[in-house]
């Protein structure tokens, strides 16, 4: 049995925004619509019942009309600090379809205009499987640094 840490997907990034703005990005349907669809897809429906036990729903549409649905439940909410929610994608991408995951968003404000957001995603069912892959997971921080460097260049 592996005794290493259970496998997480972790993303951390420093945004030019307040903690309140980042909190809104996850909890205000109007803002969720602007960024939670992949690639050329668009968000066609966003609902958030922002209370512990409340449901969230995101439905996106691909250019060919295919609909993707994400369902979740808020598990913990601390405005401007922390959001914990389940996140289940229900198709049609078979690989992750129906898989219940847990997402934790942690917000750490450096100032009114600089906040680090860390997203941690774990799979609910198979900690054992995740542990088995310990050491095999390439760090995403390197890629993130590259992405950020690219973004900064674009800005200038």
């Amino acid at each position: 049995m592996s005794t290493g840490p259970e496998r997480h997907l972790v993303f951390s990034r420093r945004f030019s925004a307040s903690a309140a703005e980042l909190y809104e990005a996850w909890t205000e349907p109007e803002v969720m619509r602007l960024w939670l669809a992949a690639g050329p897809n668009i968000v066609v429906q966003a609902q958030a019942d922002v209370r512990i036990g409340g449901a969230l729903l995101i439905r996106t549409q691909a250019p060919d009309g295919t609909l993707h649905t994400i369902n979740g439940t808020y598990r913990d909410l601390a405005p401007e600090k922390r959001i914990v929610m389940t996140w289940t994608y229900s198709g049609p991408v078979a690989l992750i379809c129906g898989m219940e995951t847990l997402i934790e968003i942690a917000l750490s404000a450096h100032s009114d205009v600089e906040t680090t957001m860390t997203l941690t995603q774990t799979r609910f069912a198979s900690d054992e499987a995740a542990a088995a892959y310990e050491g095999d997971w390439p760090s995403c921080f390197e890629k993130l640094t590259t992405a950020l460097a690219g973004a900064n260049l674009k800005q200038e």
Partner: protein
Amino acid sequence: MLRRLVDGPLTVSELAEPLPMSLAAASRHVRVLEESGLLRRDVSWRTHTCTLDAEPLAAIRSWIEVYEHFWRNRFDTLDEVLKDRRRKRRGTTS
């Protein structure tokens, strides 16, 4: 446990032997792995032989990859959205 099964099937006792845990604890771990669909247990007489089922493991890697790609791109978009909103707000308040 799973790593050792890569080399071939082992009995529960063999799996437990190098681990700092009792046979009962090892047996519980085996059951969890079995329920996750990562391990197959064949019972012959009183010997339980465990075989690795690697297919779900391949999928695990993939779900992480799918979401990794997804979040990297979403964060890029969010960054742009937030900058845009800030610019607009500044534009309307000044």
